[in-house]
């Protein structure tokens, strides 16, 4: 099935630390932007600029001045080794350059050469290096083998966040015209059209009409999927994959059923039809702001009182952690509700208040486990108590089905492993690193499959869902195992019994 080695799953839920294979992933890199428009749409040079070394160093200086954290991260590593075996890409590829410290050092060596006294005077003594084409190639390769999942930062005694270093590296590369095709093309569509897929409004409406028909055929209940309805209470912003892909669309059906039964008036927006915000993957504040601004604009135009975010990992990080400074203040929304609010917060609150009628036995054919998505688990929160981002989705699952079991404690909550496709890596040209990076998660999944008969892997992130759909078969799992949390709700909810 694969023209590369796929790790073999063992019996223990945690993968052992591999013997290193230097250079194992050397040279693997995603397609760079070829069509200049994919860069210029984002305000970057269309192709590699002539004096790229000087521009890159200047950009690094700008970022160091702007983000104090970046300089602290580059200065404070003591090479203790805590992070070395924590990255799923290292565990899956054995390439020592996929150890988080080695990834950081790719940037750190240049930082030292141009921004520290020791590196300027005696570069050889402090691991400082000139910025050469060879270094740039390494950057492009290995900063696209990082999904910015932040697992390593959990174990770092200094709290060094490799994701932030990776974002800075990508921002520098974009600033000299070396952009990644997948992320940049998509972000351009989001900024220009309103969603990552480039779905025009009539296509969204057509898809939603089809879903209304399907749900009514299946349940006999006319559940609406409203689009651009002025005066609705809730604006739902969800990843556009929820309109397009499987199994994502079953989650969208779940949200609609929840709103329907609870009697909440809601709408989607064709102008802001995307929750995802790839600006974060590039570390590009300006582009992140442009994408997010469409959402504020839509919320004001439609006159909604609440903004709810669907199942999307980094969308939730951007919304929860950055929206307030990007597109706030939200003083035009109803202060009784959190702004923004996660769909899981909405649903669990309704369950607790008895507003939803769920028949758990409808999911009796499923034995469910939950994959904590990295951006939700380590970069945001839900609810009003610490750890709400772990407990809330699980509480919804337990309310929707009878058979739930967690994977090994070392692979969930803040220790969760990335699906392997986050951070702009969900592209076919990176399939080897995506498959290998999924290894630790697949290993933990295999154990609960063998011990408990797990046959449903629930996630609340569009990237996780697409990634698992693709990689599960490489590990001899059925691809249909992956689904959303709201897909379980959708199965369990008894329409027509409450409204």
């Amino acid at each position, binding site marked *: 099935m694969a023209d590369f080695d796929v790790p073999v799953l063992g019996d223990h839920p945690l993968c052992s630390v591999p013997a290193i294979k230097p250079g194992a992933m050397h040279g693997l890199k995603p397609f760079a932007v070829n069509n200049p428009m994919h860069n210029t749409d984002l305000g970057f040079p269309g192709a590699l600029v002539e004096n790229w070394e000087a521009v890159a160093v200047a950009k690094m200086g700008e970022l160091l001045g702007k983000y104090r954290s970046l300089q602290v991260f580059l200065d404070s590593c003591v090479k203790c080794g805590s992070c070395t075996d924590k990255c799923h890409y290292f565990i899956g590829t054995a390439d020592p350059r996929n150890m988080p410290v080695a990834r950081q050092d790719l940037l750190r060596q240049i930082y030292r050469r141009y921004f520290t006294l020791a590196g300027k005077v005696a570069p050889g003594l402090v691991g400082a290096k000139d910025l050469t084409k060879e270094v740039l190639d390494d950057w492009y390769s290995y900063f696209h083998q990082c999904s910015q999942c932040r697992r390593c930062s959990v174990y770092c005694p200094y709290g060094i966040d490799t994701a932030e270093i990776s974002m800075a590296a990508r921002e520098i590369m974009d600033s000299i015209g070396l952009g990644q095709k997948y992320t940049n093309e998509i972000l351009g569509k989001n900024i220009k059209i309103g969603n*990552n*897929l480039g779905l*025009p409004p009539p*296509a969204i409406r057509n*898809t939603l009409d*089809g879903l209304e028909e399907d749900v009514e055929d299946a349940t006999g209940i006319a559940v609406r999927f409203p689009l651009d309805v002025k005066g609705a209470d809730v604006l739902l912003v969800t990843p556009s994959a929820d309109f*397009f892909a499987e199994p994502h669309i079953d989650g969208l059906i779940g949200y609609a059923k929840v709103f329907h039964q609870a009697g909440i008036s809601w709408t989607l927006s064709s102008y802001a039809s995307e929750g995802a915000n790839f600006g974060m993957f590039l570390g590009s504040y300006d582009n992140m702001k442009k994408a997010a601004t469409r959402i504020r604009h839509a919320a004001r135009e439609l006159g909604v009182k609440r903004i709810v975010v669907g199942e999307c990992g980094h969308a939730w990080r951007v919304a929860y952690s950055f929206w307030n400074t990007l597109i706030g203040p939200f003083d035009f929304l109803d202060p009784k509700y959190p702004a923004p609010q996660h769909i899981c917060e909405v649903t669990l609150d309704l369950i607790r208040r008895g507003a939803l009628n769920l028949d758990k036995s409808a999911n009796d054919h499923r034995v469910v486990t939950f994959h904590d998505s990295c951006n939700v688990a380590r970069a945001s929160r839900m609810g009003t108590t610490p750890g709400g981002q772990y407990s809330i989705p699980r509480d919804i699952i337990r309310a929707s089905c009878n058979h739930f079991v967690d994977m090994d404690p070392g692979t969930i909550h803040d220790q969760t492993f990335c699906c392997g496709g986050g951070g702009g890596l*969900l592209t076919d040209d990176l399939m080897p690193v995506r498959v290998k990076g999924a290894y630790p998660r697949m290993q933990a999944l295999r154990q609960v499959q063998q011990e408990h008969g797990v046959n449903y892997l629930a996630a609340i992130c569009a990237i996780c869902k697409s990634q698992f759909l693709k990689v599960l078969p490489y590990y001899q799992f059925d691809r249909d195992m992956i689904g959303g949390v709201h897909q379980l709700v959708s199965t369990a909810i008894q329409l027509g019994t409450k409204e």
Partner: protein
Amino acid sequence: MATIDVNGKSFEVDEEGYLINLGEWNEAIAERFAGDDNTQLTPNHWEVITFLREYYNDYQIAPAVRVLTKAIGKKLGPEKGNSKYLYELFPYGPAKQACRYAGLPKPTGCI
């Protein structure tokens, strides 16, 4: 820019093998793409390809997988209106592989 030759004519394709100029598409190109994947196009493949092209013509975008499965179910019978069947026809994923054969751009996003 890479090119492919079909029946003595040259066509531009992108890094991932998708046709650059959508207007240039013809059935021989689809056959060629499929042949490169060791796939023989059957009438059922053509049902999918034709539907994709018609939908793209109407909406300037490929249909959602759910829209596609429903349409195929109506044409070929309900037992074939599901992603599993589409994966049998297009093992690399119905959205991306079938779009490539149909001469449409690659669907992008978290898919």
